[in-house]
């Protein structure tokens, strides 16, 4: 466990140490605040627009954070950093788990900062209390980082630096766009990821509460799916030749 946390802390510290991350968070807050100026252009629909913008930008931020691992793992494998690490007492599965945990923690911190800032901006702009569904929608979005991180680790392990981020973003895009195949739950949500289970953006806008039981179950699903994908990745990683 300590090995996993050592890898994880290295990963999240690398990301959270970058000043550009905080500059981007600030930019997101500015964009969220700008949505309040769309009152005339939307004929008074600027309030839902601000909530939408905050959720969409947070979702993009979450995707970008998990994408960072798709650059990091192939780079470490190419440069031999991973090989050096793996010569120590560290197992390959622990390395993957550490990367996934690290990216999750970094994602949680960044997305939580964006969510908190956006909700404060919303409350100050409209002099309104922040409703529960707004918190819930942001919370589920943050939790969706868990399966997304495992997907990123999966592609980062199997593919080179160029292909891994592209494939990860395509996979995330389609995991959110389940459409009609979402009605085959064993496949979608079992073998294939169904990130749409975390998508409650419209609930934040229309202030429709999400049952706590659902939130608990979907969090468990996220962890279970991430575990499945990490274990599957570890089988491929085990046989991978690392120079």
């Amino acid at each position, binding site marked *: 466990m300590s090995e996993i946390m050592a890898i994880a802390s290295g990963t999240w510290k690398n990301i959270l140490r970058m000043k550009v991350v905080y500059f981007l968070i600030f930019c997101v807050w500015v964009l969220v605040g700008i949505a309040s100026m*769309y009152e005339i*252009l*939307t*004929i*008074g*629909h600027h309030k*839902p*627009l601000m909530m*939408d*913008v905050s*959720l*969409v930008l947070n*979702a993009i931020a979450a995707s970008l954070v998990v994408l960072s691992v798709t650059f990091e793992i192939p780079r470490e494998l190419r440069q031999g950093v991973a090989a050096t690490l793996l010569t120590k007492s560290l*197992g390959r*599965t622990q390395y993957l788990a550490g990367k996934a945990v690290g990216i999750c923690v970094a994602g949680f911190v960044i997305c939580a900062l964006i969510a908190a800032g956006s909700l404060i901006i919303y409350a100050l702009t409209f002099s309104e209390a922040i409703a529960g569904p707004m918190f819930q929608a942001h919370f589920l979005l943050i939790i969706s980082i868990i399966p997304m991180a495992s997907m990123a680790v999966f592609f980062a392990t199997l593919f080179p630096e160029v292909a891994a981020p592209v494939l990860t973003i395509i996979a*995330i*895009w*389609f995991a*959110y*766009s389940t*459409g*009609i195949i*979402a*009605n085959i*739950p*064993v496949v*979608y*949500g*079992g*073998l294939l990821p*169904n*990130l*749409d*289970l975390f*998508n*409650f*953006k*419209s*609930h934040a*806008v*229309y202030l*429709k509460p*999400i*049952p706590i039981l*659902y939130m608990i*179950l*979907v969090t*468990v*699903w996220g962890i*279970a*799916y991430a*575990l*499945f994908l990490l*274990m*599957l990745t*570890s*089988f491929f990683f*085990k046989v991978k030749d690392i120079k």
Partner: protein
Amino acid sequence: MKKDTVIRFMIMIASLAVASYLACILTPMQSDISQEKNFLTKAPVAGLHKFFADVAWMRFINFAGGLSSIDSTNVDKVSRMLEKIIAYDPNFVESYQSGVLSISNADPKLAVKLLEQACANPHLAHNIQIPFYAGFILSRTIVDQNNPDKILSEPDYAAAARFFRMAIQRTRDPESYLISNYIHAKAKARGGEESLAVLSVLYDEWKMSKAGKDEIYSDYCQIPDIEERLVKATREAKYPIDDEGRLLKPSQKALELIAKVQQEILFKKHLCENCVTPAAPGDKFCGTCGHAVKTWGVCSCGHILSSKAYCTRCGKKQ
């Protein structure tokens, strides 16, 4: 096989089983919580439906705002934009209340179709305006603005009455305009003399309101001031006027129905039999038409009674 591999394999299978099991529970659960997901477009937009609806809404406002009017030359494009917004977010109230209404003169059929879809949306189940707009469009003759000889939509009063009734059923305290539109649409759907049809509609509604709980009428809705409306409708049926305001003679059918209404419903209202105006306590003749009325509200001592329990002159209990 190594022990480590077996453990990892078992964890993988167990977590896959848990994820699959939870997906089986969560998918229908999510459909229940977010019922609008069943109406959403299947286009792969990565769950950003609401945001795309906002963007499409701004594009619609920009486009429609630049047009001098929405008519047959541009309605197809405007309609497509609206359908796109609704496909992304079926709960987008403004797109119905401002958007769909803007195409009602150019493409009334599509406007009604979109409003009807909105009426079936559980999220908008308490919205009164949407069914009202649908009924409003259906109860009018709409002609092409560029070609007044071309009729785009003929009134369908039966369908309009259905929508007006839906609007009334969605509120505990329906506005007067909703009830008037409902009664007139239903009356026009029946055809014939309008004042008689209105009275007959109100009489039927009154009968349904008095029916037992076991008797369920699909075309019934609660009209709060039905007796006041019946008084007015009786008067109008007794003294019908034509389009130019000339007084007409009521038909035999109308007189029969008026007599029935007065006998069954309005007998407690102390109305003048001639002009259907309420008579005040102690009146011997109608103050409006001078016709003799049945005197009421007078104590045996001759004092006109107020609404109190005892006569204020002789103290007799009333």
